[in-house]
């Protein structure tokens, strides 16, 4: 495993540098290697899959292999669609980039443009992107990265070779974490590693961050399952849990206060809060399964209303009121 010695976050330090080392995506790697042997035939690429499965890493590896470790930055434009709001910025930067980097490198007759989180782009922005892809196709190749390819408009999909990144295998993740632990001289129990991997739900970056935090906590002492549980507890969405508990236990005003606190500090949208609630709802142990199913349906209804309505705070408040109601039903029946 090649190591980026400078980087201090392990996620970056142990990010694979060559396609060989990408974790657990063998089929994809094999197909991509064929393009590497003859870059002239490489089409636009689209990488789809859940977070933390190696999409960005694979894209970076392609850049490394095409242009070499020394030069890749000069021939690669990294754009984050959800940060660079607005297609105009994207268009300007792509235009500038393809103008200045026209010089081909070795056998590679194009520059590489990596566009992250494409499924966050609006329909009109995607249509504009399609035009950009067409007009710059002589000088550039795009690697589009997204979570769901279904959210990308058909014309773009049909212009790309689509690669679907599957959830990482549990064993492969465990092996990878153990390898990092060995290199960092972290003494960690097998159970602790498994606990991390289970919590990370197939997101390798999440797992590596948890590992690094646990190691930092113990400062050289062995890392056991207890420490990992503690770390996970600290890093889990406590405020969201608090909000739900308050609502269910009938303290609506306090639940709403916490909600505004989260929105204010983190700047989450209504949809992002709903996603958090979804995750946490099923972890609440004292709600029986039937009520969880009911609440899940209510959640779905309000998730939908959120997309139709004008005012996400109001919809979230209304949702919390529903939780209070279900909480009261539970209280009366027990």
């Amino acid at each position, binding site marked *: 495993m090649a190591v980026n010695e*400078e*980087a*201090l*976050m392990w*996620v*970056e330090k142990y*990010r694979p540098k060559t396609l060989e080392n990408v974790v657990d995506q063998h089929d994809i790697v094999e197909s991509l290697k064929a393009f590497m042997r003859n870059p002239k035939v490489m089409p636009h690429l689209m990488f789809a899959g859940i*977070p*933390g499965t190696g999409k*960005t890493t694979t894209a970076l590896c392609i850049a490394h292999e095409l242009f070499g470790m020394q030069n890749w930055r000069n021939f690669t434009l*990294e754009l*984050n669609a*959800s*940060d660079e709001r607005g297609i105009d910025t994207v268009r300007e930067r792509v235009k500038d980039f393809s103008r200045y980097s026209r010089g081909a490198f070795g056998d590679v007759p194009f520059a590489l443009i990596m566009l992250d*989180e494409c499924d966050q782009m609006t329909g009109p922005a995607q249509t504009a992107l399609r035009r950009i892809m067409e007009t710059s196709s002589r000088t550039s190749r795009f690697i589009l990265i997204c979570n769901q390819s279904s959210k990308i408009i058909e014309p773009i999909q049909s212009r790309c070779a689509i690669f679907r990144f599957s959830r990482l295998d549990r064993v492969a993740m465990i092996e990878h974490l153990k390898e990092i632990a060995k290199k960092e001289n972290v003494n960690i129990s097998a159970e602790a590693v498994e606990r991390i991997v289970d919590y990370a739900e197939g*997101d390798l*970056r999440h797992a590596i*961050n*948890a590992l*690094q*935090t646990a190691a*930092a*906590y113990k*400062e050289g002492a062995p890392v056991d399952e207890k420490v990992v549980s503690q*770390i996970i507890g*600290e*890093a*889990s*969405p*406590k*405020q969201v849990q608090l909000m739900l508990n308050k609502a269910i236990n*009938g303290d*609506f*005003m306090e639940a*709403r206060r916490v909600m*505004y*606190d*989260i929105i*204010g*500090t*983190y*700047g*989450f949208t209504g949809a992002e809060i709903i996603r*958090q609630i979804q995750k946490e709802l099923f972890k609440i142990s004292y709600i029986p399964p039937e009520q969880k199913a009911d609440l899940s349906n209510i959640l779905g209804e309000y998730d939908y*209303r959120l997309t*139709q*309505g*004008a*005012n996400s*705070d*109001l*919809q979230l*408040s*209304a949702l919390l*009121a*529903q939780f*209070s*109601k279900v*909480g*009261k039903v539970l209280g009366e029946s027990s």
Partner: protein
Amino acid sequence: MKNSLWVEKYRPTIIKDVIGNEEAKTLFVEWLENKRPTRKAVLLYGPPGVGKTTLVNAAANEYKFRIIEMNASDTRSEKAVTRIADPATSFTGLDKFSSEIKGNMLFMDEVDGIAGNEDRGGVNAIIKIIENTRVPIIMAANDCDLEKLRSLKKLCLLIRFQQTRIPLIILALKKICEQEHIKYEFEALENIATKSQGDVRSAINDLQGLSEEGKTLTEQDTLALGLRNKDISMDDTLQGYFASKNLTEAVILLNSSNVEYDDLLMAISDNIPRRYADPFKLAEAYDYLSQADVFRGRVGVENWHLLKYVYNNLAQAAAVDPESYKSFEFISPPIRVITLFWTKNKRTLLANICTKIGAQCHISKYEAKMIFIPYLRLMLQQKKKAPALIEWLKLTPEEVTFLASLKMF
């Protein structure tokens, strides 16, 4: 004459009897007598109830004009304006030969009420008519600062009306009392006049409402008069809304309020938990609010006809449990506004930190927020390794302090 409105019964029929606004009256008469021939039209503007319409009627009466009137209750699209105003303004009238009537005079009341949509082209039609008219055109408005009236104002002589002075109103009330044989305490009339805030019409209406035949109108009788609010404020709207005894009452109240519906929606959402303590009632009321908001979303910027469903749902939320109403103190200003104001600094710091993480680790700000911030907070607590990490991410001391105090979402 019990059943006639005093405002009509005692409306002056000659200019001299119109009270207050002497300067405006003089200007208007001079214009009508063609001493100021520079403008074909005149725009009278000022608060309601100070005598704009009365002055026009009195002047028409004195100078023998026939008034052709259009007001807000008529639609004033281009077609409608042209249909009524064209004949009125182009013929000086056959009546010239047959009677004392000098001719027509076009009076458009409440021109500031010409709405953008239904009255499409209305302002332009009026401008055309002013350019071609042969008869005097008079317009009246409460608010002449409106953008849509800008081109119209250029063609008009502007005459400003002010609130009628209180002593003049008291005098007018006194006269009416004498004619109606009503005994009164002077303080009562003074109270009515003061509370009208210079609106003669409302003062006369109040007088009629409070006085009873054969009884003396006392100061005590007038104390119940609230300040006449020209706009129903947010607080009054909420007060009336939450106290509504049934659906109809809530609908009527919402329709009479001038509060912006987006503000209202937020204010009701902020306050409704204080109205319904019972979780079942609260959930039900909030469900109506939620549907009101969904319809608000569908209204967007053009489907205004859907607005009534917003209001209907809001009214439903008010009428979930009328019996349980107790008055309570309102939360204001809006929670959202206050929260976002006080936390702005936090959000900016967090966004900056996430950008720095993103730059080093090839991830978006959102991913940085979701799977890096939770752990970075904890890593920085380890004093030995923290400094190198801080340096690598290029975090400022302020950002480090912020991360240390940051609560997990």
